[in-house]
């Protein structure tokens, strides 16, 4: 192999050399190189190993279609475990390593596997290793697969953007440029995206002229004009997904970003009209042993020559079934290589003259029958295109590169992702769109255009159509390119008709013609089954070069037309996209929204152990120096029972419901009767889903005849508001009622304990006596000069007052309450402490003690179902046989026989029936009760209330251990409610 850098030409900057390492060896390249072009210029042939057989793999393509050159790249602190060498720009100091080889891609010990290839056809893993896959998987995974992710290697953040435009043009080749120019000149707002470093597409390496200028010069002028028209130009940006309503996802790879930010940036673009002009991929022409390094796409060879001034080889054999490779052959010959061209077609096309004039030896009706060479091609056997034996060699020629062109597959991906259908065009030997999707316009190769003139015309037409759809008028004339010589049709040629040697279809996943034949014999007749059985097209290149060849062969082996076989489903992303880029800013502290209490800094100053509860950062408890959280919880709970505690309940929802029909509406929604609630009073309520399942609990206050205040659980407030709106807007729009979520406007603190009244009294003139403000009543008034509310409601079982003021005063009130309670030893307590206090009292926590099956009666609340006169959401579901089963799980208390042992939450109460262990329910809450100085638990147990009456014992099972517990009432403390009402 004698790939070499030419002394002139290319879009590289020879004045700016770059140094990088390949497998530890220092090599050089230039600014403008990709990793692949730099490696090729340094005559590196083996870049990787194939997935299954560990055969040597070299550079095949020049861009995203590349199946082979997947490498590990380290640059500074950044690590790219599966970099596509053909698309990554070369940077100074890059360390590049080949993958999937041990110890290195040049000497891979695993390559011995290739000797056993006859034993490893497609389906080998399924047939051999199942059902014991788990025994083999670790070793197989080690041998196969690609790069290794380094946890925490990349700490960069990624930016995402969403914008709207009139016209998105996907693809900045000649057709895309023509379309963008036409639409932008007509006055549309246009975004033009192209995945290459610059715009122009094939004009950058082609020979053709537009409007009398070299193509690349025209492209540069077009881009300047577009910039002048205000078009958003996004180079190095791949449109990788098409979604509903003309929404497209783009991945932009910027060379630089702000400190700490990744270069990749995802754009979500909503386009009123879209132009799809993504070009086409050159298919391989398949022949025996076509996987050796040196076998590459003909178009790629031309790109390396023209873009990077790298001549890929000295002795080049071009294999083709179409006209496009002739120009490539001529260019390579003129650049100094010795080129032989074989065309499977028997008659010379018009373009043959160009190649022959350049000195290329042309062999018609011929194909490469075989290649040889250990770590790369050294020679090629040429024989008749219809040869059926490897021995039918007509001539053997030295070859370090075999450049293949099996025809062109238009990039229909975006069209298909958007739901567009395809048809097989036998004349063009390609899948083409049946019709463009609404508000999408096709341009360039995807329309079947082959010549530059046709591409430009289709681009102009697409841009005009987009403008017309927007109510604009296209004003510019189409760019002109000289009509090309009439092309000779390509000849469908899917493989050399020999069976004695492997012919590769999917170079990355090692899928050969034989594998497809085997799949067809085993009746995997659907192309989707073929894909999954053989893994054809399932590698990181997603079969950009292999899919069409594979399905054409499936058609041949199953005796069908290609149209009947069809394609697999095209899904986003078109190219691999960094997961972090999709996550965007949603990571670290911004991973999910969090809410803070108005007195957050006061809690922190008080030493709170702040944790997240349902999206709120709340104090779990306030450990003192040398105290564990568990000790703090016991201390705080005891203080609330014995004197007074202070709890921040500001996160509790506060939804105001007002209107002349507020009572009627809430009565329809809530399980409990609310129409007879008197103003100034509170009621504990359940809110059900239509299924009768308890969605939330809370307290409702009636502020006035037509105004209620709902207090949903902290994490359910948004959900309850949505439910209110949904029922009002869909089922009961005739009821006059409206809702205000005022949660954020109020700070609420619970002062709870025997001394609560004494602490609070000096702060307000509101009468706090049991007569004036009994349990489940509230009053409005001033609290230290500020208008607020005091509600007598308790979640601890102690005498409790919830004091609310506008949240701007929250921090000040917290401080005032602590000062006022200092004489009583007022103790701030957190939500973990509250959870102990409420468990002692048998109060449920929604989502902790309840789940998606819990009905009100399971919680012991059956009164409203019997007594409530009007219908309510979920009522019908409460009357089903399942809801009325006597053996439902019911909410009970459990006292472990060993009072020092706290059962595990989630432990099951078990019994043996027919010799089998079965669950009778489970523990939902458990703790050590400071009031009882023993362990207590709450749980949902089958026929629990019956068991509690009997004082029955159950066996609690957890991780193989059994603990006995007595079933009791869930109320462990103050069952008569004397403390609560006192």
């Amino acid at each position, binding site marked *: 192999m004698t790939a070499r850098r030419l002394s002139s030409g290319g879009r590289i900057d020879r004045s700016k050399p770059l140094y990088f390492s390949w497998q530890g060896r220092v090599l050089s390249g230039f600014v403008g190189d990709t990793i692949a072009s730099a490696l090729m210029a340094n005559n590196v042939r083996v870049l990787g190993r194939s997935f299954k057989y560990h055969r040597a793999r070299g550079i095949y393509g020049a861009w995203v279609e590349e199946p082979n050159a997947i490498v590990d790249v380290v640059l500074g602190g950044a690590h790219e475990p599966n970099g596509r060498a053909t698309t990554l720009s070369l940077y100074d100091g890059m360390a590049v390593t080949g993958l999937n080889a041990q110890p290195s891609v040049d000497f891979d010990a695993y390559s011995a596997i290739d000797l056993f290839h006859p034993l490893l056809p497609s389906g080998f893993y399924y047939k051999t290793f199942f059902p014991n896959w788990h025994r083999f998987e670790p070793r197989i995974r080690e041998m196969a697969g690609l790069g290794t992710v380094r946890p925490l290697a990349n700490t960069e*953040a990624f*930016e995402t*953007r*969403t*914008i*709207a435009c009139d016209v998105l043009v996907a693809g900045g080749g000649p057709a895309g440029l023509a379309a963008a120019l036409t639409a932008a000149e007509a006055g549309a707002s246009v975004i033009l995206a192209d995945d290459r470093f610059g715009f122009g597409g094939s004009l950058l390496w082609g020979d053709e002229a537009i409007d009398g200028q070299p193509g690349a010069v025209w492209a540069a002028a077009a881009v300047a004009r577009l910039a002048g028209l205000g078009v958003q130009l996004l180079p190095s940006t791949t449109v990788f997904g098409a979604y509903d309503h003309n929404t497209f996802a783009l991945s932009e790879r910027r060379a*630089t*970003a*702000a*400190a*700490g*930010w990744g270069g990749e940036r995802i754009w*979500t673009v*909503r386009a009123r009209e879209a132009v799809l002009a993504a070009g086409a991929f050159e298919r391989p022409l398949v022949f025996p042993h076509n996987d050796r390094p040196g076998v590459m796409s003909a178009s790629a060879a031309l790109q390396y020559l023209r873009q990077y001034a790298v001549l890929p080889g000295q002795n080049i054999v071009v294999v083709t079934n179409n006209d496009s490779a002739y120009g490539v052959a001529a260019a390579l010959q003129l650049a100094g290589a010795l080129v032989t061209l074989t065309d499977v077609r028997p008659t010379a096309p018009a373009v043959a003259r160009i190649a022959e004039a350049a000195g290329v030896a042309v062999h018609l009706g011929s194909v490469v029958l075989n290649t040889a060479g250990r770590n790369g091609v050294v020679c090629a056997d040429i024989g008749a295109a219809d040869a059926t034996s490897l021995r039918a060699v007509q001539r053997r020629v030295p070859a370090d590169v075999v450049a293949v062109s099996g025809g062109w597959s238009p990039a229909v991906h975006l069209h298909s992702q958007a739901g567009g259908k395809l048809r097989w065009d036998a004349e063009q030997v390609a899948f083409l769109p049946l019709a463009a999707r609404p508000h999408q316009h096709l341009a360039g190769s995807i329309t079947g255009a082959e010549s530059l003139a046709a591409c430009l015309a289709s681009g102009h037409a697409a841009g005009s159509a987009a403008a017309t759809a927007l109510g604009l008028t296209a004003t510019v004339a189409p760019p002109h390119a000289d009509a090309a010589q009439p092309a000779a049709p390509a000849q469908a040629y899917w493989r050399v008709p020999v069976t004695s040697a492997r012919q590769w279809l999917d170079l990355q996943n090692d899928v050969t013609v034989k594998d497809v034949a085997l799949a067809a014999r085993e009746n995997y007749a659907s192309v989707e089954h073929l894909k999954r059985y053989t893994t054809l097209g399932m590698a990181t290149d997603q079969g950009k070069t292999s899919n069409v060849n594979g399905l054409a062969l499936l058609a041949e082996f199953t005796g069908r037309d290609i149209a009947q076989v069809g394609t697999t489903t095209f899904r986003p992303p078109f190219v691999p996209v960094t997961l972090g880029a999709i996550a965007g*800013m*949603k990571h670290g*502290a*911004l991973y*999910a*929204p*969090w*809410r*803070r*209490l*108005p007195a*957050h*800094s006061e809690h922190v100053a008080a030493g709170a152990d702040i944790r997240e509860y349902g999206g*709120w950062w709340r104090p779990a408890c306030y450990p003192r120096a040398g105290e564990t959280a568990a000790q703090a919880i016991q201390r705080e709970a005891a203080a609330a029972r014995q004197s007074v505690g202070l709890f921040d309940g*500001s*996160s509790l929802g506060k939804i*105001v419901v*007002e*209107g002349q029909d507020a009572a009627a509406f809430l009565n329809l929604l809530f399980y409990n009767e609310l129409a007879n609630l008197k103003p100034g009073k509170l009621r504990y309520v359940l809110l059900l889903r239509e299924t009768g399942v308890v969605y939330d609990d809370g307290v409702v206050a009636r502020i006035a005849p037509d*105004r209620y205040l709902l207090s949903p659980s902290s994490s359910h407030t*948004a959900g309850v508001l949505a439910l209110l*709106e949904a029922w009002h807007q869909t089922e009961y729009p005739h009821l006059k009622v*409206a*809702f*205000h979520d*005022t*949660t*954020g*406007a*109020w700070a609420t603190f619970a002062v709870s304990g025997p001394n609560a009244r004494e602490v609070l009294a*000096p*702060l307000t003139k509101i009468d706090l006596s049991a007569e004036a403000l009994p349990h489940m009543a509230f009053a409005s008034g001033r*609290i*230290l*000069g*500020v208008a607020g509310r005091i509600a007598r409601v308790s979640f601890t079982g102690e005498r409790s007052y919830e004091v609310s003021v*506008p*949240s*701007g*005063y929250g*921090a*000040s*009130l917290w401080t*005032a309450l602590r*000062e*006022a309670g200092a004489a009583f030893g007022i103790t701030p307590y957190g939500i973990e402490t509250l959870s102990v206090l409420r468990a002692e009292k048998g109060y449920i926590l929604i989502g902790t003690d309840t789940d998606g099956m819990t009905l009100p009666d399971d919680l012991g609340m059956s009164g409203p179902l019997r007594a409530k006169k009007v219908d309510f959401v979920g009522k019908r579901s409460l009357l089903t046989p399942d809801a009325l089963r006597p053996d439902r799980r019911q909410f009970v208390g459990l006292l472990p026989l060993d009072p020092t042992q706290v059962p595990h939450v989630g432990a099951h109460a078990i019994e043996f029936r027919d010799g089998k262990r079965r669950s009778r329910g489970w523990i939902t809450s458990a703790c050590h009760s400071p009031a009882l100085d023993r362990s207590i638990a709450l749980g949902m147990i089958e026929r629990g209330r019956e068991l509690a009456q009997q004082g029955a014992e159950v066996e609690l099972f957890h991780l193989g251990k059994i603990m006995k517990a007595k079933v009791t009432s869930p109320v462990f403390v103050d069952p008569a409610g004397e403390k609560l009402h006192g």
Partner: protein
Amino acid sequence: MVDLQRRSIAAQLGSGWAGHGVAVRLLDLVQFYLPCAQPPNSIVGDDPYTLWLAPDRALQVGGTASAGFVSDMTDGLAVFELSGPRADEIVAMGCTLGLSPSACAQTVFGGVRVVIYRHGAAIRVHVERQLADFLLLWFQTALSALQ
């Protein structure tokens, strides 16, 4: 005992942050929820002005409370104001909507529910007070991405 002291969210979190071409401020504005009869997504009036939120709900910014079903949200909603030539880039980073000059929207910004609209040359974002710290961190992070 002394009377309670008010601490606005702006006083609590600070008032100004700047990036390349964008400034973010936290404002302390009088706000009320009130019944709504104006067209969807409309902004009515200059000072005070009301923003359409839902079929039965509007947000009045500034002024005093009228009679009827009114809830004082002055302490309930934090108001961020973005200004500068690149403010729209921050919107593109946080929000899927493009902003029209004369409409407001209740939408998701930076992962949280907000009310957003143009106010003169600036952009205002109202968010529940409890989410203000989160959104502030989001803004500070987003500003650091501009170069």
